[in-house]
């Protein structure tokens, strides 16, 4: 995996929502380039478009206008995009997602939850790597527990393991510590930093938590669907 090669390129993308008859530009002519190995935190006030942007970059949603390319492949250009199943194939090749909530299946053990993606899709060598992954996330002694027996931080680590089980190039995290106290948040932050530094994982993080944002290499501040400020923390 070459560092500093472009993995996501967005040019003048727009996302327009209709609220009644009113058009809201949640993302407005925004351009951003993500390189392999980047760790970017998107910050900004509520409603500034962070989640919308992350969804667009992660191919969970289609932009209304502009050009988006992922891994050299054009996903969207001037109003025309790929089909849902084509998007799914890109998503499972390139992206891992974690959210504020963990969405673990409560009746499956930690290990089973982590292995769920394999029932749909399995990258070469991914299965062999699971023990290492669990160890790295500090879950090796929790494998056979049910989610209900874990702390919030541990649950989020299970969700991270599940997101990473197919070796995605990019991890997208929307408020991953929104349900955690500050100590656990920091733990997750350090873990993300470690994954970025040691494994070269590209991470796009959305957070309100400044301490967590400071773990990223780059911070991008959004306001009204545009980039207001970009810098290193």
């Amino acid at each position, binding site marked *: 995996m070459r560092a500093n090669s472009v993995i996501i390129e967005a040019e003048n993308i727009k996302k327009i929502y209709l609220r009644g008859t009113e058009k809201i530009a949640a993302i407005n002519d925004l351009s951003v380039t993500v390189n392999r190995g980047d760790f970017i935190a998107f910050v900004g006030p509520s409603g500034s478009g962070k989640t919308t942007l992350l969804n667009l970059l992660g191919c*969970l*949603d289609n932009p209304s206008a502009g050009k988006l390319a992922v891994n050299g492949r054009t996903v969207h250009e001037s109003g025309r995009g790929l089909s849902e199943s084509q998007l799914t194939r890109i998503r*499972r090749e390139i992206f891992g997602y974690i959210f504020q909530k963990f969405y673990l*299946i409560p009746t499956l053990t930690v290990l089973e939850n982590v*292995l769920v*993606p394999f*029932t749909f899709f399995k990258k070469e060598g991914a299965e062999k790597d699971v*023990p290492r992954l669990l160890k790295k996330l500090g879950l090796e002694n929790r494998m056979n527990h049910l989610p209900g027996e874990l702390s919030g931080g541990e649950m989020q680590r299970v969700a991270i393991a*599940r997101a990473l089980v197919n070796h995605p190039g990019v991890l997208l995290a*929307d408020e991953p510590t929104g349900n955690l106290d500050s100590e656990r948040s920091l733990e997750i932050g350090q873990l993300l930093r470690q994954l970025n530094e040691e494994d070269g994982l590209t991470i796009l993080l959305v957070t309100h938590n400044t301490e967590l944002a400071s773990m990223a290499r780059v911070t991008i501040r959004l306001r009204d669907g545009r980039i207001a400020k970009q810098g290193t923390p």
Partner: protein
Amino acid sequence: MKIKNSQKISLFHIAWKNLARKKTRSLLTVVGIALATWVLISLFGFNSGYKNSLDRDIDNLGFQMLVVAKGCPYEAATLMLKGGTGLKYMNEAVVKLIVREPEVESVTPMLMQVVFDPNKGQSGGLTAFLGVDPATFPKLKPGLNFKQGGWFTDPAALEVVMGFEAAELEQREVGDLYLVPEKEIELKVVGVLERSGTQDDGTIFLPLKTLQKIFGQEGQLTSVGIKVNKEASLADFEEKMFKLPDVQVVSLTQVKTTIMTLVSTARILVFSIALIAILISIMGVINTVLMSVMERQKEIGILKAMGALAGDVFKLVWLETSLLCLLGGLLGAVLAVGTSRLTEYLIRKLLPFAPSGGLISIDAGLILTAIGAVVLVGLLSGVYPAFRAARMRPLEAIRSEEE
């Protein structure tokens, strides 16, 4: 640390564990399906058991129709009153004409003769002889049981079978000789019948050929007994028989027609109830699965974000539905078999007319068919919820974050 094979995970395993999440709800659905299956198996088991028993009872009634020469009395009593006179004959050829009709299941030719026996009683009396075909008559009269002995050894044997009262009157047993009055022919008694409560009790049976020969009536018959197919319409058939020259049709039992109508009405009822039971269980299944799909909307979104294609989600939800139905079907089958005695008892109390045999017959074929039907129904009712789930977009998962 290594991942063991047993720790690998399949879609089936996920489906199973998903059902375990809402145990009460899954259980209730399973019970609902089980009840429908139970009704289904019991009803169809009852239907076929009832039909079998009824068929057997009807078969025991013997032939339902007689064709006699026009003007010929067919009741022994009438004959007796007329002093044994007035018999009319038809030629044996008529049998061929009757057998041609598709409604006919089997026929048996008969010749009746009535003789004055001066030694009978104090001042003599009439004795009725019936010449029957040993090849067909016993089959058409399965209700006739032997007290002693059996039917003739040969179609032209010099043998008699005596009705219960006839044997008592003549004081004959198997092995005794019987002398035909005024004919000086000795016949051997080979069988004595049990009491049947019909005119057969006073009748003396001979092989048709023997009787024809003794009375010089070769090739002649007085009546032909006809058994009609179970499905055939008796009325239509009678109509046809009327067209034969010089014969007259006598329907021995209207009972059967009545019962057959009853049975087909019952069958329609059974099918309707089964249909309703199935419809109700379909609704239950769709409701449960749809509800669980809606509750898991976000989770399904996550599955899709993790790389599940629409088809994968569809399979998962479909699998859950089928599992519910399979479990319900199995439980229902166990219930149906376990309670069949009780069901039979209840039905017997409810029915105005219950045949003598077993009323409920549940066999492996029926059970497999019912479970198969229930699973099929499950597969069908799983389509819509599975489709709804498969169509969900991963974004829904993230959007509904705020709630």
